[in-house]
């Protein structure tokens, strides 16, 4: 490769760097060009192009797969901000197709029906960067070990209930605080106990944070939910069904964007939370049978 003119593409700095540029922002699920324009107008930093939002995937059941490329291209052409799309866990051919379409980030997502119940995609093989869900530090570091350049909590997508996202954020951040204070000789057996690559455990202990950007996802429905995830210590927020399944998507989208920027300013949070119309209806996690929970997918 001619370094001087073309440069190096798909390097770790370039992949993790895009996620760094998304920090302090909101990534919104959209199903068509119209919604993508609403999201950009509201100040989203990126959109997730889908055929169905998680709440509808839950409703309709069946096998959930990568979206129709036609749909994804329509959304890519309608907006100037980055476009992400989802591939099934382990489905590296869906990921190859998404890369060929030119999407900016791939979400290897438990919201879709897994294609492999043992292995995730080897994300180092790709030029396009990946984001993956995690419930705890071990899972986050396994995904980073496979090449994920960004992590998000799994939460419980399509419910409008933030409790699982909080659980996963507290787990990851709590475990990071633990390793930070561990003597070095304890890190190896800790790495073994959480099933994480040793070098990434050491790196996390040194940094006092994940080695990549870490967003909240799965159940965020209000500006207060978004600010809660930011105050807990996450870098930004994905909102899936919470916006376009609500009564006034334009207003709610803008309010959540402002809540993420001003997450420590309760007066602004009070102001932006007013009169947003009906939130998405939501499903309480405690009423959800185990076999309908998505967060358990991924290994």
């Amino acid at each position, binding site marked *: 490769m001619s*370094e*001087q*003119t*073309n*440069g*190096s*593409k*798909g*390097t770790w*700095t*370039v992949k993790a*760097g*895009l996620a*760094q*540029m*998304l*920090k*302090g*922002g909101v990534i919104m699920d959209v199903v068509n060009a119209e919604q993508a324009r609403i999201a*950009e*107008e*509201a*100040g*989203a*930093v*990126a959109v997730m192009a889908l055929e169905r939002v998680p709440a509808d995937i839950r409703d309709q059941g069946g096998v959930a797969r990568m979206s129709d490329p036609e749909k994804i291209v329509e959304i*890519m052409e309608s907006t*100037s*901000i*980055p476009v992400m799309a989802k591939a099934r866990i382990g489905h590296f051919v869906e990921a190859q197709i998404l*890369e060929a379409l*030119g*999407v*900016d*980030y791939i979400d290897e997502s438990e919201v879709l029906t897994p294609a492999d119940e043992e292995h995730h995609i080897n994300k180092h093989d790709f*030029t*396009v*960067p990946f984001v993956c869900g995690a419930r705890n530090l071990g899972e986050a570091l396994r995904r980073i070990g496979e090449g994920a350049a960004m992590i998000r909590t799994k939460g419980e997508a399509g419910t409008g209930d933030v409790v699982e996202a909080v659980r996963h954020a507290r787990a990851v951040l709590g475990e990071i605080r633990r390793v930070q204070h561990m003597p070095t000789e304890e890190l190896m057996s800790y790495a073994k106990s959480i099933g994480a690559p040793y070098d990434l455990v050491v790196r996390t202990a040194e940094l006092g944070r994940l080695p990549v950007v870490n967003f909240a996802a799965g159940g965020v429905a209000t500006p207060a939910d978004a600010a809660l995830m930011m105050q807990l210590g996450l870098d930004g927020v994905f909102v899936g069904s919470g916006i376009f399944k609500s009564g006034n998507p334009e207003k709610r989208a*803008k309010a959540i*964007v*402002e809540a*993420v*920027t*001003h997450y420590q*300013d309760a007066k602004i949070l009070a102001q932006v939370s007013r009169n947003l119309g009906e939130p998405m209806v939501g499903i309480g996690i405690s009423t959800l049978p185990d076999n309908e929970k998505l967060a358990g997918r991924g290994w």
Partner: protein
Amino acid sequence: MNMTIGVLALQGAFIEHIKMLAELGVDAVEVRKPEHLDDLDALIIPGGESTTIGKLARTYGLLDPLRSFTQQKPTWGTCAGLIFLAKRIGRDQPLVGAMDITVERNAFGRQVDSFEVDILIEGIGDEPFRAVFIRAPVITHADEDKGVEVLAELPEKGIVAVRQGHLLGTAFHPELTADCRLHELFVRMVEAEKSTEGA
């Protein structure tokens, strides 16, 4: 010399800039509201999404305060920050419009075309600088008659670093590398500006 540099913290990679300034021993503060600009000696506008940063700046009444700030005080925009500082970008989104340059957004293509490359930059010495371009813009025109100096160019691609008096603009992300030389250049610009004020 004592100085305080603000970093616009509406969205994006502001923490990375604050860390680099800290390494140079410079106090840095986050700017989210107009009153946060008071008492600052200079400002950095970081990378992020320029549409998001512009809309939040407009909603929270920052556009006019930023326009008057950038007329007087050193300001540096990286990537989205460069777009936000430009006078012309050929599309409708909120801008500060301080630098006499035309900028094209996403000029290199989508994320799969993002890259890093060694470039030479005027004013920071002869060692190449590792420049990280992420869905980066390019400067398609710099009004040299209005005092815009070109500091770096990519062969066949265009201008990627400019200076116009007390304003600095880079299409790439020095805050994603360990190389502090551009931050040092900016700090020298702030020192020079402060010593003229004092005189």
